[in-house]
């Protein structure tokens, strides 16, 4: 099998505005750099497992739960919390708890930025009222760590509908551990307005019990994205969307048949793509492996008319190994060691479909899904069943 482009799989090389891929045909390694854009700073979990801020245009290789690293690609999001780290600020109301700063945090940017909450009653909590939200799903997250007797106890988020937003108060429980963990919960108001966010740590305590906290975030969306620090911006701080793409040389991609292997980490199960091969001038011309309506699909739409084959494989959050094989009259989709969809392809190849986008379908200023990319490889052959199954077997 002629492997014409490789990116990732632990071989990451990045610089500002660029991510390196390579062609390894015949043992000759030729660079094939991807363009990378993100107009703002962002945070990433580094090799040491600590949160670290990187500058505009710098690709993020994230090591959260992955020792080989993965290219983190995210949509635009805004942290609506005004003081995400200053829990001693009067912005945060406190009940039954004292707050002490200067403790070791999970952040390389702010090593002593954590706060210790010490219970002064058996019902300690901090909260913030008057948070302006829309009627779309809101997700709250915070880093927490149990100390001593609080380890193993339950804490909770309370989406407290005591403002002008419509909705039913929702309690989202989590268990405190001896390690830092990022806990999150989501709620969907029935109408926009103000809500309160309350964090009970732990939910039932004894006087003197302690919990460490760091980095609170409230964002519009169904899952927590990477942490966005704030320090007094009442309208929040926005991280801009990431995009990584490459216009492929014709020597790499110019006709049927071709195959693409992609290993991605799905974070938003609503809709998304593992990658796309796109005509950047006409964004309705593409090949992709995508998911929507809860299942994976393989799609050929190189000239506008769409040909799509659905699998019956349900999409949940987690890591997937996929191979798509496109030939002049057929398409096949493999997932995690099995052929999950196959059928005919009547779409003629379009040489203007020449850009490879990692982890997403299109480049635009939207808030649509980007999936974290562990590896993407392009082949200028139709992989055999045996090759595709071997590549995708977990």
């Amino acid at each position, binding site marked *: 099998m002629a492997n014409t482009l490789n990116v990732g799989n632990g071989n990451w090389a990045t610089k500002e505005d660029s991510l390196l891929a390579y062609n390894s045909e015949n043992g000759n390694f030729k660079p094939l750099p991807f363009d990378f*854009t993100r*107009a*703002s*700073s*962002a945070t990433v979990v580094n090799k040491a497992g600590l949160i670290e*801020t990187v*500058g*505009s245009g710098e690709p993020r290789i994230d090591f959260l739960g992955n020792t080989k690293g993965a290219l983190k690609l995210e949509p*635009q999001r*805004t942290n609506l919390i005004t003081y995400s780290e200053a829990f001693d600020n009067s912005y945060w*109301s406190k*009940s039954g708890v004292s707050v002490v700063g200067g403790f070791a945090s999970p952040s390389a940017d702010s090593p002593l930025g954590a706060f210790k909450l010490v219970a002064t009653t058996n019902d300690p909590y901090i*909260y913030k*009222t*008057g948070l*302006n939200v829309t009627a779309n799903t809101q997700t709250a997250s915070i880093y927490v760590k149990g100390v001593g007797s609080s380890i193993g106890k339950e804490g909770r988020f309370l989406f*407290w509908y*005591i*403002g*002008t937003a419509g909705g039913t108060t929702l309690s989202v429980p989590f268990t405190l551990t001896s390690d830092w963990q990022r806990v999150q919960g989501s709620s969907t108001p029935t109408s926009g307005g*103000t809500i*309160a966010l*309350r964090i009970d740590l732990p939910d039932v305590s004894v006087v003197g019990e302690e919990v460490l906290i760091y980095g609170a975030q409230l964002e519009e969306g169904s899952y927590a994205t990477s942490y*966005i*620090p704030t320090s007094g*911006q*009442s*309208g*929040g*701080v*926005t*991280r*801009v*969307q990431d995009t990584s793409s490459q216009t492929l040389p014709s020597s790499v991609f110019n006709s049927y048949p071709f195959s693409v292997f992609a290993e991605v980490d799905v974070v938003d199960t609503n809709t998304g793509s593992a990658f796309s091969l796109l005509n950047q001038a006409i*964004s*309705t011309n593409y090949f992709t492996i995508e998911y*929507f309506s809860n299942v994976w699909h393989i799609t050929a*739409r190189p000239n506008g008319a*769409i040909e799509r084959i659905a699998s019956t494989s349900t999409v949940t959050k987690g890591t997937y190994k996929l191979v798509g094989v496109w030939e002049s009259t057929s398409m096949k989709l493999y997932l995690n060691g099995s052929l999950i969809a196959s059928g005919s392809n009547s779409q003629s190849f379009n040489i203007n479909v020449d850009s490879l986008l990692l982890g997403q379908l*299109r*480049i*635009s*200023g*939207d808030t*649509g899904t980007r999936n974290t990319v562990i590896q993407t490889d392009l082949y200028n052959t139709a992989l055999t069943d045996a090759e595709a199954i071997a590549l995708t077997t977990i």
Partner: protein
Amino acid sequence: MKIGKYQFDSREVAESKIKALGTAEDEDGNEYPTHKHTLVHLGHIVLEAGDYDEEGEETKAPVLSAKWHIDALWADEEGHPYGWATKSVEVDGDGMHSFFGLSYNSHKI
């Protein structure tokens, strides 16, 4: 890239200006932007904070701006896009919202 801050008479007016920046329809008929700018709806921003009692209940409502506010990070624009200049406002410092790691004064359009 440049940062602009804007206020419109209503959300609907703001959304029509954003739509004019470029949209297309996907295969399912859903509209998506074709531009590469980043637009943040700040909405009716709080001009004067409300008051809340110890239970978190609102005792005095916040005073909100009658205008609909938008912050924009323009990807490839040196000036305001057509129809945006007259809605532009200037603020001290970064104002109430910022783009992570970007100073408004250094990137002001």
